């Protein structure tokens, strides 16, 4: 437990990590307490159509008179949940596939590595587009698809970790006293090797938020939720005389993604203090 305390303390010495965490906590509060924070219901229509930012409507209103601030606040829910669920699925898959493939080696490992390499070169977004277009666009589907298509970078990290852990004394001792392979994987290799995957997951959360925004912008998002990408899409027609309709959802998207990038880099600095100032890829 002391190790964890050290880890946290080291993380908060990194200014990027602190700022990222602060933005993240703010957005998380927005998402959880959206009902209390937003002055209006996200879909409540009003007479003030396309009115500029004012005391009554801090971010102005859109073409249907809906309060943009309230919509942005509710949009936080969608973006953060997409980030968490998609990156979570990706991390789980990546950890298991990477650990198994690295630990057992052989032909399976060869094939898995080839698949990982190819996946890292394919424009994943198009793959996600075609899947969402065919299977329909409900929010859970979108999260699932993003998770299922982005695990290879986690798997690559976990595989490398496994290959190095496999040669350490800890694992060799466990093997010599007859622990089963599965037990070694789950109680030694995965718990010790997964930290870089966690750092990468923070970056993937940002990526997932951008992907969902792009899908919604293209009109392939979940029609039943208020998302930032959808707001930007709807604002296209009105932006030339109502800049506030497009500027605020975009700024929140950037804030969310920047927060996760900062957190990811902060974690990486904490994990590899020797490399401070150097990002590994």
């Amino acid at each position: 437990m002391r190790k964890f305390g050290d880890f946290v303390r080291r993380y908060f010495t990194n200014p990027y990590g602190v700022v990222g965490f602060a933005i993240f906590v703010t957005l998380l509060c927005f998402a959880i307490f959206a009902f209390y924070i937003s002055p209006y219901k996200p879909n409540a229509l009003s007479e003030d159509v396309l009115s500029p930012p004012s005391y009554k409507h801090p971010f102005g209103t859109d073409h249907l008179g809906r309060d943009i601030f309230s919509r942005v606040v509710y949009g936080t829910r969608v973006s953060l949940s997409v980030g968490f669920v998609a990156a979570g699925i990706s991390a789980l898959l990546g950890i298991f596939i990477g650990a198994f493939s690295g630990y057992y080696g052989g032909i399976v490992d060869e094939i898995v590595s080839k698949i990982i390499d190819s996946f890292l070169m394919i424009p994943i977004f198009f793959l996600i587009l075609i899947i969402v277009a065919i299977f329909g666009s409900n929010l859970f589907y979108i999260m699932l698809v993003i998770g299922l298509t982005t695990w290879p970078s986690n798997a690559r990290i976990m595989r490398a970790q496994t290959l190095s852990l496999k040669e350490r004394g800890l694992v060799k001792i466990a093997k010599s006293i007859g622990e089963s392979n599965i037990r070694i994987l789950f109680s030694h290799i995965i718990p010790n090797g997964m930290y870089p995957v966690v750092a990468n997951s923070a970056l993937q959360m940002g990526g997932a938020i951008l992907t969902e925004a792009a899908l919604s912008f293209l009109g392939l998002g979940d029609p039943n939720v208020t998302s930032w990408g959808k707001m930007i899409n709807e604002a296209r027609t009105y932006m030339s005389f109502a800049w506030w309709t497009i500027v605020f959802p975009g700024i929140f998207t950037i804030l969310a993604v920047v927060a996760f990038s900062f957190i990811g880099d902060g974690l990486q600095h904490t994990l590899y203090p020797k490399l401070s100032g150097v990002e590994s890829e």
Partner: protein
Amino acid sequence: MSYFARYLTRRIVSAVLLIFIVMTLNFFIIHSAPGDPVTIMTGIEQPSKEIVETLKKKYGLDEPVFVQYVKYITNLFKGDLGYSYVYDQSSWSLIKERVFPTLILTLSGSILAFIIGVFLAIFVSHLKTKFGDTIVSIISYILYATPSFWLGLIMILVFSSKLSWFPTSGMYNLRETYTGFKKILDFLHHLTLPVLTLMLIQMPVFYRVTRASIIQNYKEDYVTTLTAIGVPKRKLFRKYIVKNSIIPPLTIFGITLGFSITGAALIEIVFAWPGMGRLMLDAIFRRDYQLLLGIYFLMAIFISVAMILTDIVIAFIDPRIRLT
């Protein structure tokens, strides 16, 4: 040169493999879709009997999935990109005029992003002030987090709607029929904003990789040695550090092309740029999967070729790769 030949062969084999995997994935995605594959493939609600017959014969749709898959891949490698039943034209005839606009947008955006990103990293590390480094790093974080379509819209809002410096959309001014030099100028005028957007989106990756590689290089043994024998700092930086630091961003140039073609597709949609990205989106909305698969195939080839070309360039710059 035989090392190099072997190296190149290996790259080409892995490129073909990549295309193969992409198309395999696409095939199985379409085949696992709910509903009748023939209807899905044509993209039409009620395909006529002739279409159904042709498709069944072409892909052997009553045979096992594996046989269908083999037929599908053979057709592709024969150069048959499929037939768009929605447009009633072969996919290639629809795609071919879209190739050039996409290529010029993606390549010029990526190359500019590379040059500016690398230059900025070198410049900032040359300044050696913490302040400059922090400012540029934060800007690069922000640009990295910016959705390409949003940045494109903001560009239109600022430079087209408010300032009227650049046209909002399209590739040529449709109201005028320019020829020769004027046509090129008109084209460049339309190209500026999309390329600028793509460049800004791509730049952070190159900046960050170059920056990391410069810092890494300063820790290498050769720097210690050269400093010890009295090579001036300026010369050390210009002649050795810069040269060595360019290789990692160059390596990722090929890999990021996949990412950049995605950004380009969204930017094309925003600027009504007549490239493959827009055609692809239309294909998705009209459920024109044959056309969609054709576009995918072409994009996969494009990315693979670009990756091989970057590998060749790297091999010429870095003898360690060429000779081992």
